[in-house]
């Protein structure tokens, strides 16, 4: 069936053929907003790819300082990973509750997501503080500059995600789960899931590959 025959088909079939290709008129606002945010997330991931590349290039240059396997505590990294993974899960369930206009359930899942994200940040911050104390700060070697930049940028993203979540919870409480608030929640959940995807790259490249090397 070629595109040229669409005009002669019944309307529903033509619309069905044009799905995802802009047929059937402009998409609803919710779709447009989330698609735009998806493009932002992809550009954010492209920015992270630059930091990943810098780390990959610099990771061997320890300048006589400590190496990854001397500094990393994989038990903590595993706990961090699980915190972020479960927060992605509770974020997804929270988004579902919001879609179904269950404000109470949404608030519970939002609180769980916040606690798990904050636990992740706490472990990361204490790891950074411990490294700086051991004179393994970002200025010690190329490896550590790359490490702090990459992992720190991810941490800053998680921090801004948590601040954004507080702001959205306030909106849900004050304004209720109306369409505009739901669109913002959708963008936030995309952001949070994307951070977990970036973390998969971080724990694989930085911690696991660094430690076994």
């Amino acid at each position, binding site marked *: 069936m070629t595109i040229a025959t669409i005009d002669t088909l019944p309307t529903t079939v033509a619309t069905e053929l044009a799905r*995802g290709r802009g047929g059937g008129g402009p998409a*609803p606002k919710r779709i447009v907003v989330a698609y735009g945010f998806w493009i932002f997330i992809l550009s954010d991931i492209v920015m992270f790819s630059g930091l990943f*590349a810098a780390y990959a290039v610099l990771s061997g240059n320890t300048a006589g300082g400590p190496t990854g396997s001397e500094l990393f505590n994989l038990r903590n990294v595993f706990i961090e990973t699980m915190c972020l993974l479960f927060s992605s899960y509770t974020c997804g369930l929270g988004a579902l509750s919001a879609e179904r206009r269950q404000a109470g359930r949404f608030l519970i899942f939002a609180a769980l997501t916040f606690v798990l994200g904050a636990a992740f940040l706490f472990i990361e911050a204490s790891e950074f503080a411990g490294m700086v104390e051991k004179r393994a700060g970002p200025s010690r070697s190329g490896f550590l500059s790359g490490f702090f930049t990459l992992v720190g940028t991810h941490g800053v993203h998680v921090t801004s995600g948590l601040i954004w979540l507080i702001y959205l919870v306030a909106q849900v409480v004050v304004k209720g789960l109306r369409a505009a608030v739901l669109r913002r929640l959708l963008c936030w959940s995309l952001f949070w899931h994307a951070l977990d995807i970036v973390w*998969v790259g971080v724990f694989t490249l930085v911690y696991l590959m660094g430690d076994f090397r």
Partner: protein
Amino acid sequence: MDGSERVFDDRTPGVEEHEPTASVLSYTAGLGLAILATIGSFVVSQTNLLWAPGIPVGLVVLAFAQIGVHLVFFLHLGSAPDNTNNILALAFGVLIVFLVITGSIWIIANLHANMMP
């Protein structure tokens, strides 16, 4: 405005259009698979389960598997026609990420190999 009255909508990442129970199931299945991949990565890196020179390859494969799980079960990206725009954007992003990372590693490795001793 939320488009629920329309019969055919394009899809967007993060939105599951199936029955509500299927959605919870999707998140839970994704969580289970992601946990398996995570534990797999940690085990592979810390034990002799894999032939030593193959460990980085195993880790990369597990990471890609987990990212795929996240995309499908958490962001609900699929291969259906209504997902075409999302997948195209993702494909372009993946291309750029690939070029930046492999290009940097390739160029710097060449420079490193050609350095005066």
